[in-house]
């Protein structure tokens, strides 16, 4: 069934990470990414891994979810690792014909893989612990300085929010229309490419019609409640920086400091 598909990866919970201000969370995630890239040293990366273990522990996200988020990037990681192994010059470990694997190549491949894995796991944590609505809200606030450049930040964020809000509704609608057409003998499963594309018409047309109808109704409902864009608009859910937002920022700051410190005083420099 279509309705078994979940879009968005939000994993409801009540941990500190869930309650963190979305703006702070976005900024800290960016800081984490920076931290991963300035770590020129395996010990520095270890800080990143420990950071992830700690935050995933606090958020109570089942560890199996990390694997799920890593699955799609595995081919990229494998590809870059192999390239790194063969093309970085240095002490050869193994040589065959024109192919040679170097020590530096292997270490770079390992470090790069760990870095990408940490990167994905860290950014997934953001989407796991932040509802899509909170996320767009946070992005809107962070981008609000762009308003001065005449960029309609609020309108773009509102579009995002509406799109996210209506995904489940449209899935349900599609499900209903599919059932209704199947009840009239529509055959969606067999036939060649052209036939299948044709079989989609009885589903897509009613779906578009209903999407337009919904858009119309929503626009009227918003106007009835005096919606007129972002200017001067107040919010029901005010974003406020709490104590734990500050503590978390301080903690991430300390982690970055630690990484820089390790870079300076334990210089096992890697080939980038």
């Amino acid at each position: 069934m279509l309705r078994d598909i979940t879009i968005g990866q939000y994993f409801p919970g009540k941990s500190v990470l869930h309650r963190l201000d979305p703006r702070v969370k976005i900024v800290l995630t960016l800081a984490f990414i920076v931290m991963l890239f300035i770590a020129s040293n395996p010990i520095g990366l270890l800080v990143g891994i420990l950071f992830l273990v700690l935050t995933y522990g606090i958020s109570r996200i089942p560890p199996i979810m990390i694997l799920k988020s890593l699955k799609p990037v595995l081919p990229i990681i494998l590809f870059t690792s192999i390239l790194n192994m063969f093309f970085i010059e240095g002490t050869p470990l193994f040589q065959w014909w024109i192919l040679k694997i170097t020590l530096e190549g292997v270490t770079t491949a390992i470090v790069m893989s760990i870095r990408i894995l940490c990167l994905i796991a860290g950014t997934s944590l953001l989407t796991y612990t932040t509802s899509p609505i909170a996320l767009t809200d946070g992005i809107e606030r962070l981008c609000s300085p762009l308003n001065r450049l005449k960029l309609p930040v609020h309108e773009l964020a509102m579009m995002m929010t509406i799109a996210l809000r209506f995904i489940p509704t449209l899935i349900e609608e599609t499900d209903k229309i599919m059932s209704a057409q199947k009840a009239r003998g529509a055959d969606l499963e067999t036939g060649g490419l052209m036939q299948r594309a044709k079989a989609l018409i009885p589903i897509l047309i009613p779906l578009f019609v209903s999407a337009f109808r919904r858009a119309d109704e929503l626009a009227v409902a918003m106007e009835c409640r005096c919606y007129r864009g972002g200017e001067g608009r107040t919010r029901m859910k005010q974003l406020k920086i709490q104590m734990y937002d500050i503590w978390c920022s301080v903690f991430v700051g300390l982690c970055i400091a630690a990484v820089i410190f390790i870079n300076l005083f334990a210089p096992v420099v890697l080939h980038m």
Partner: protein
Amino acid sequence: MIAIKTEDLTYVYSAGTPFEKTAIDHINLEIEQGEFVGVIGHTGSGKSTLIQHFNGLLKPTSGRILINGVDLWAKETKIRDYRFKVGLVFQYPEYQLFEETVYKDIAFGPANMGLSPAEIDERVREAAEFVGLKPHHMQKSPFELSGGQKRRVAIAGVLAMNPEILVLDEPTAGLDPKGRDRILGQIKQYHKARGTTILLVSHSMEDIARYAHKVLVLNHSGVAMYDDVAAVFSRDKEIIQMGLSVPQITRIFSRLRDRGYPVSESVYTMDYAKQELLSLLSGKEG
């Protein structure tokens, strides 16, 4: 002959996830051919899930469903044939219209059956006549029609498949009283003319009382009652306890009985009510 039979029919949504929900639980049911059955039950009682099993749109988690004695999910059964034997009209069926013209939309079902153009033409015209669509409607776009007309086009689209069993999920939701009576009248007429087994899901007890012979009451994912209209509505207190209601007139007579008037306990239509009142009054005078 038994048209629909279910044996311990159970359906669980999202099995194996935290959102698991049993929609229908061990339903055993036998519906005779040619019956006009009203289906009632409050929201979430499993009505929609149950009816989607009748034409094989949903596959039971456990249990069996037999149409005309054939197990729908047996290996040799071709499910698609039963989609045509059991016509299912969904809630707000007008949202499934998609063709350029009313005619083509009604023809969608028969065309899927692989009938010849002549047969399709005949079926479309018959079905359109049954639901009261005029020939000049046929070449219009379904999106130009009024809400009630669209609904009738959608119902005609199912009728055109000449189903042996017709299941309608709240066919009158959102229509004005005139449109409602018209559609239900046409369904009744179709039932009389063709002898089709009909299941009508409705929240209007008045409609059920007026049109159905039997009532199927669903409650807590199971069958609470399945009996003649009179027998079901005479258990008005139980029905009200389920969060449902009985026809207004039945409630009035129930109150009269509570006050000690010797009236029948199975009054559910106006005609019968009038008779009862008249005999009560003449009895008092005499």
